C-alpha cells in the first residue's frame, strides 16, 4: 500500500475512534522518511491527545517544528498545544515566565512562540500584553506586566515604531535621541523588575524612496535605521538580548516578509508565514539565556568532514580541498572551527582504525580542523551509540548537551532510537548544504561570549588527559598533588560579572541550591556588606580552567547562610570546593559568625552533591523536608576552618603576573 492509502486508512480509523490503530497507519505512511511530514506529525499528535497520551503528543509537535516552516501547520500545532495545556503541563526542562509586548498584533506569534519553545525544551508561561500597549505596560508600575513578574520580556516591534524622519539634516543627533528613547524604556523596565529583556530590532522596509542614494546619504531614513540597529546592539551589551529581525527579514526575503494587505487588515507586521522562523529564533535566544544551548558537537569523519572513506581511499584519495565537493568539506570544517573558537566543544566519533582516522588531521594540507581542536577523538568499530555515551561521560556533560552529525542516515536513526536526548541533525546529501543544516538548527545559539568560552577545548582535552593520569597515580592524594593546582579566590567584581552570571545561569550538576539569580540580584549581593561572595579561578600544570566556581553567603545573626554554592563540571573531583569553603570560613570569621549553614535543594541534576556538606564536616540541622531539601550546620567555632590541602591559593596579583608571563 502506498503512503497516501495508509494516510486515508488512518483518517478512517480516526473517525471510528480507533486511535491506536490510526497511529500505526500514519507511522506506516511516514515510513522511510527521516522526518515525518508535518501533516502526519499533526495527525499522530491528535491521536495521542485523544488517547490521553499528552507527552507523546507534545513530542510529535516538536517534530512538526522541524518538519515545517509555514504558518498553517504551525497554527494547527499551536492550537493543539493550547488544548493540551488546558489540562496538562507539557514536558519541559524549564518553565520560564515570558511577557510578550508588541507594537503589532501578536496573537498568532504568541502561539507559535509557545510551540517553538517546546522544541527547545521549554514550556512557556505566557503573558500577552494588549495590542500596541508596550510603552504603557513598561511605564506603569501597576501594569499587568509587573504583576505577572516575568523572567523574560520580549519586545516585538516593527519599523514604524522608530521615530525617525524620512530625511534629517542632523542624522547623528536624531539617531542618538531615538536610541536614548529606547534605553530609557530599558531602564524603566529594569527598575521595576528583574526580567531579562529580549528586543526584536527593526526590519528595514523593502522600499526605498531615495533609491540607492539612501546607501550614501546618512540623513536618509534607511541609513538612520541601519545606524539605530547598530547602536541598539552596542547599547545592549550583556544586559539586553537582541533578535536581529533585520537579518531575519533579509534571510527570508523582504518582498515576502512584508505583506501590507495583512497590515491594513489586522496589523500583522510580517506575513504569517514568517512567524514560525521568528518564533524559532526568539525561542532559541530564550533557551540560550537559560543555558539550554547544546555544548558539544560530535562529528563523523568519512563523507562528513571529507569526501570518501579514509580507510579505503587513503590520504591522497579522499575528497578535500580540490573540486566543488572538496571545497564544500573544507568550508564545513571551517564553520565547525568557528563554532569551536566560540566555545562549542568538538568530539570525533568514527568507525575507523584510529591511525587511519587521525592521518588526515596530521598530514592532509587542506584540513581546516586540527587534532588540537578536538576535545575527544574516538575511532573504533564499536556501535556509535556506545561511543557517544562514552564521550558524554568522559567529558562529564549530559547526553542532552550533545549534537551528532553524520552523513549516514542509518547511523543517525540508530542514535535517535538509542540516545533520544542527543540531537541529531539531518544532513542533506550534498556537502555544500552541511553548513546551513547545522546553522539553521539554532542548537548552539550563544548567550554570551567570554574568554573562558574560547579556552574550553583546551580544558576538556586536559580533562581527558587527566582521566588517563588518574589511572596512573598511586593514590588520590598523589594525583591531587601531581596536578600542582593554584587558585585565585576573590570577591565578585565588575570584570568577572559576565562569567559569574553565566555560571549561575547554567550550572546544573554541582549546584547546591540551583538559584538562578539575575544580574540585578547579583549586584545586590555585591552591595550588601553582610554578604560574602567569592569566585574561584583554577589552574593546574595542564591548563588554565578560568573562573569555574563561586559561593554567595549572607549573615543571619551568628550564622553565615550559604545562598549559592556551585562549580563548573569541568573541575569536579579536584577538591576545589574545599579551597573555596576554606576561604568562606575566613569571611565568616570576619563577619563574627560562629557557624556556617548550608542548604541542599534537590533538582533533577544535582544528586552528585547531596552528600557534599557531610563530606565537608557539616552536621544535619533538623530532618530533610518532604521534597528532600535539607539544612546543614558547620560549627566553625568548635572545628576551626575547613581544611584545604591540595590547592595553593594565590593572590590576584600573582595571577596577573602569571597571565603576563
Amino acid at each position, binding site marked *: 500500500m502506498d503512503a497516501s492509502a495508509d494516510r486515508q486508512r488512518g483518517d478512517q480509523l480516526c473517525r471510528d475512534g480507533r486511535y491506536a490503530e490510526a497511529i500505526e497507519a500514519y507511522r506506516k505512511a511516514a515510513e522511510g522518511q527521516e522526518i515525518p511530514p508535518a501533516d502526519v506529525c499533526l495527525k499522530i499528535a491528535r491521536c495521542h491527545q485523544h488517547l490521553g497520551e499528552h507527552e507523546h503528543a507534545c513530542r510529535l509537535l516538536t517534530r512538526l517544528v522541524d518538519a515545517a516552516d509555514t*504558518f*498553517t501547520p504551525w497554527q494547527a500545532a499551536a*492550537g*493543539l498545544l493550547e*488544548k493540551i495545556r488546558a489540562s496538562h503541563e507539557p514536558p519541559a526542562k524549564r518553565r520560564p515566565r515570558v511577557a510578550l509586548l508588541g507594537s503589532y498584533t501578536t496573537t*498568532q506569534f504568541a502561539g507559535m512562540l509557545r510551540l517553538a519553545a517546546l522544541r527547545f525544551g521549554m514550556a512557556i508561561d505566557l503573558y500577552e500584553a494588549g495590542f500596541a500597549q508596550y510603552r504603557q505596560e513598561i511605564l506603569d508600575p501597576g501594569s499587568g506586566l509587573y504583576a505577572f513578574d516575568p523572567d523574560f520580556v520580549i519586545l516585538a516591534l516593527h519599523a514604524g515604531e522608530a521615530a525617525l524622519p524620512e530625511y534629517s539634516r542632523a542624522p547623528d543627533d536624531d539617531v542618538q535621541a531615538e536610541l536614548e528613547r529606547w534605553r530609557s524604556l530599558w531602564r524603566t523596565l529594569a527598575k521595576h523588575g528583574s526580567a531579562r529583556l529580549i528586543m526584536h530590532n527593526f526590519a528595514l522596509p523593502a522600499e526605498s524612496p531615495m533609491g540607492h542614494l539612501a546607501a550614501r546619504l546618512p540623513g536618509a531614513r534607511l541609513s538612520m535605521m541601519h545606524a539605530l540597529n547598530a547602536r541598539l546592539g552596542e547599547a545592549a551589551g550583556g544586559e539586553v538580548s537582541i533578535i536581529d529581525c533585520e537579518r531575519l527579514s533579509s534571510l527570508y526575503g523582504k518582498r515576502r516578509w512584508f505583506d501590507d494587505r*495583512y497590515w491594513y487588515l*489586522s496589523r500583522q507586521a510580517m506575513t504569517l508565514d514568517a512567524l514560525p522562523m521568528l518564533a524559532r529564533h526568539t525561542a532559541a535566544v530564550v533557551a540560550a539565556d537559560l543555558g539550554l544551548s547544546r555544548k558539544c558537537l560530535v562529528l563523523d569523519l568519512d563523507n562528513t568532514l571529507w569526501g570518501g572513506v579514509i580507510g579505503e581511499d587513503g590520504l591522497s584519495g579522499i575528497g578535500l580541498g580540490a573540486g566543488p565537493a572538496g571545497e564544500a568539506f573544507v568550508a564545513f570544517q571551517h564553520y565547525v572551527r568557528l563554532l569551536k573558537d566560540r566555545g562549542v566543544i568538538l568530539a570525533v566519533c568514527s568507525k575507523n582504525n584510529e591511525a587511519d582516522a587521525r592521518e588526515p588531521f596530521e598530514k592532509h594540507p587542506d584540513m581546516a580542523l586540527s587534532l588540537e581542536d578536538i576535545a575527544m577523538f574516538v575511532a573504533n568499530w564499536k556501535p556509535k551509540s556506545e561511543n557517544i555515551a562514552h564521550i558524554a561521560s568522559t567529558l562529564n556533560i549530559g547526553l542532552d548537551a550533545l549534537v551528532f552529525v553524520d552523513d549516514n542516515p542509518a547511523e543517525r536513526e540508530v542514535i535517535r532510537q538509542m540516545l533520544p536526548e542527543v540531537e541529531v541533525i539531518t544532513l542533506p546529501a550534498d556537502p555544500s548544504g552541511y553548513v546551513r543544516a547545522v546553522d539553521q538548527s539554532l542548537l548552539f545559539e550563544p548567550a554570551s561570549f567570554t574568554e573562558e568560552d574560547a579556552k574550553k577545548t583546551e580544558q576538556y582535552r586536559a580533562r581527558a588527559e587527566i582521566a588517563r593520569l588518574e589511572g596512573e597515580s598511586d593514590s588520590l592524594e598523589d594525583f591531587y598533588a601531581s596536578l600542582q593546582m593554584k587558585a585565585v579566590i576573590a570577591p565578585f567584581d565588575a570584570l568577572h560579572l559576565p562569567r559569574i552570571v553565566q555560571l549561575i545561569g547554567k550550572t546544573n550538576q554541582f549546584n547546591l541550591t540551583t538559584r538562578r539569580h539575575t544580574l540585578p540580584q547579583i549586584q545586590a549581593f555585591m552591595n550588601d556588606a553582610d554578604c560574602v561572595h567569592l569566585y574561584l579561578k583554577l589552574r593546574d600544570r595542564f591548563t588554565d580552567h578560568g573562573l569555574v566556581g563561586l559561593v554567595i553567603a549572607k549573615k543571619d545573626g551568628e550564622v553565615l547562610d550559604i545562598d549559592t554554592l556551585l562549580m563548573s563540571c569541568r573541575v569536579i573531583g579536584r577538591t576545589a570546593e574545599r579551597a573555596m569553603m576554606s576561604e568562606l570560613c575566613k569571611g565568616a570569621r570576619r563577619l563574627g559568625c560562629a557557624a556556617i549553614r548550608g542548604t541542599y535543594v534537590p533538582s533533577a541534576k544535582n544528586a552528585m552533591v547531596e552528600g557534599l556538606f557531610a563530606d565537608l564536616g557539616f552536621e544535619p540541622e533538623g530532618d530533610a523536608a518532604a521534597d528532600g531539601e535539607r539544612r546543614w550546620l558547620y560549627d566553625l567555632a568548635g572545628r576551626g576552618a575547613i581544611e584545604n590541602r591540595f590547592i595553593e591559593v594565590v593572590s590576584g596579583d600573582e595571577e596577573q603576573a602569571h597571565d603576563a608571563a
Partner: protein
Amino acid sequence: MTLHERLQSVFQAVLGDDEIALTDGMTSADIEGWDSVAHINLMFSIESEFGIQFEGNELAELPDIGALKDYLRQRLEGRSAA
C-alpha cells in the same frame, strides 16, 4: 482531493477541529471558533493552499462557504485558462 475537501481540511487544520463538515450555506456564525483572529488565519491559509491572493475587500468579507468555493473555482479556472 476535490476543492471542497481541500477547503475543508484547511478549516479543520486552522480551527483545530477534525469534525468540521462544510456546507455551502455556512457562514462564520455557524462555525465555532471562527472569530476575527481565526478569520485572518483562515484567509491566509486558504491563500497558501490554493496559491491565490485575495484582493482589496475580499480579504475582509466572506459571505458564505458556497460563495467562497465559487470564487476559488473562478480564480483557479482563470489561471488554468491562461
